[in-house]
């Protein structure tokens, strides 16, 4: 690291409260308006996928960017959330939101269990253990035919039931615009909760663990317990995304949760910038939308992700966020020599 970089400390984003409140307001407004600017099923579908990816990315970021644990199992938590929500609703007849809550809890529990394995493991071992977990989960989804119907999949999964609020017309979630409002609203809520956690002593504790666990323990931090916490939160958020995914797509097949999905989410987090929450959120949106804009590259979407991931790590490890900060710094001091 160059000495110029070293003198700039990595700090929790210190934007003042008013600016943050304004940003949340703008985000809420954007969510409200976007499906009416981008009409048509194609774009509205993409918007919903963006929202789901944002949730997956910030969930992983909480574990990787803040607690410093390389979790390659996010695809498994996504899948557990999706299948649990669907099975609880369709097999046990539970109402959607109860099944959804159950799915979130199960995914969170899976994260806790995985990280209990990880407690004593250094970075690489944890990465491989989480990858192993993702592979096993995929194989279970594929092979436990009586539960999941395997590769044939589960069909005709309904979206969340329509909401009837007093004084308002019925909100039907078959309408993609309304579904987007629901999912993106939930994504914004998840972002808010994680943001608040990160700006609290919890965020500082996780950062200490990421930096160096031995002195962190010497400051009274129970590293193992906090890592379990981070995993539980990150996987619960992924489980929530899964719960929405099932009702959104209507069909559930195990292939949607292959380990490649974990790598895609990792790319979103790293390309966006691991040092913050806004970075991975932006990375998720960018990597979801970009391949759609560059229409011709369809098949090469994953090649682009892989290349972006590698290049960012090699040349711009702080991701888009670092690029944005450098850009802003350049604008503020145009005459200072580098």
């Amino acid at each position, binding site marked *: 690291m160059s000495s110029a970089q070293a*003198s*700039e400390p*990595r*700090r929790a984003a210190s934007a003042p409260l008013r600016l943050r409140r304004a940003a949340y307001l703008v985000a809420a407004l954007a969510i409200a308006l976007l499906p009416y600017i981008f009409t048509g099923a194609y774009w509205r579908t993409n918007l919903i996928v963006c929202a789901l990816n944002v949730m997956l990315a910030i969930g992983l970021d909480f574990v990787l960017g803040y607690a410093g644990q390389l979790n390659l199992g996010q695809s498994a938590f996504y899948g557990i959330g999706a299948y649990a929500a669907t099975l609880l609703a369709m097999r046990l007849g539970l109402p959607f939101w109860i099944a959804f809550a159950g799915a979130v809890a199960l995914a969170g529990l899976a994260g806790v269990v995985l990280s209990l394995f990880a407690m004593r493991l250094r970075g690489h071992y944890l990465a491989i253990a989480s990858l192993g977990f993702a592979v096993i989960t995929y194989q279970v989804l594929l092979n436990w035919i009586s539960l999941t119907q395997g590769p044939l999949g589960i069909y005709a999964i309904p979206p969340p039931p329509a909401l009837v609020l007093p004084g308002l017309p019925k909100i039907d979630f078959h309408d993609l615009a309304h579904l987007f409002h629901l999912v993106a609203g939930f994504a914004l809520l998840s972002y808010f*909760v994680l943001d608040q956690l990160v700006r609290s002593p919890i965020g500082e504790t996780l950062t*200490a663990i990421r930096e160096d666990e*031995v002195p962190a*323990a*010497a400051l009274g931090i129970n590293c193992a317990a906090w890592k379990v916490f981070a995993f539980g939160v990150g996987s619960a958020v992924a489980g929530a995304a899964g719960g929405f995914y099932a009702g959104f797509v209507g069909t559930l097949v195990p292939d949607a949760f292959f380990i490649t999905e974990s790598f895609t989410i990792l790319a979103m987090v790293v390309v966006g910038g691991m040092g913050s929450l806004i970075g991975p959120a932006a990375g998720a949106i960018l990597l979801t939308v970009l391949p759609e804009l560059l229409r011709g590259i369809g098949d090469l979407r994953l090649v682009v992700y892989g290349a972006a991931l590698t290049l960012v790590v090699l040349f711009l490890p702080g991701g888009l966020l670092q690029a944005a900060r450098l850009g802003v710094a350049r604008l503020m001091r145009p005459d200072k020599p580098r």
Partner: protein
Amino acid sequence: MTAPAPSALLQARGLCRSFGGVRAVHDITFEMPTGTVFAIIGPNGAGKSTLLNLLSGVLRPDAGTVAFGGADLTDTPAHRRVRHGIARTFQKIRLFKQLSAHDNVVAGCHVHCAIPAWQYVVHGRAFAQNQARCRDEAARLLAFMGLGGRAQVAAGALSYGERRMLEIARALATAPRLLMLDEPAAGLNAGEVEALVDRLQTLRQNGLAVLVVEHNMDLVMTIANRVLVIDYGQPLFEGPPAAVQAHPGVIAAYLGEAR
């Protein structure tokens, strides 16, 4: 186990620890009361850092006990000992290099954080009060260790002497009753050592117990109330600083016969 003497804050009895076949620490016993400075010295490889690791909980002893404030901490993990009031620094400085000096110290405040769980998400009044308390405490400690103007600098960018002081400030943020320092004067120039001695004296006057593992004899002689000399992991001599210098066994250990 005999009851600890009423004034003894830290009590180590018969501590033993081996690595493979090598006995790093063997049968070390000592006590220290509050408001004193206790120094542990010995030639390189004598087992001083291992002993410190046993006291702070990074390592478990093969035999022996550690008691603190009357409580048996032998089986207590490192992070829990901090709650009892034990803090430490490291021989090879281990700061959070990418964080600012201020953020490093704040990280130490959280062990005594008393916020209701829901306020981590919805930042209420207790949250704000805690944040203010932590920030004020960090600023005070940084100023005390001479780093007042360097609060926003990344820890990795500080000078060597500043980093040593920062590590101490961070340890003090946990509001300890016992501060254990692993070679705090290593690499410091004479002026910096003097400043360090000054601060240790102030801390002692305020009732803190300080345990120092050190090579620097000036520091030890100036500030220690009592000295324990170890060699090859075993206790060689314990007593007041003046007596240590005259002890023939200690002289032999340092100057060394052919080994």
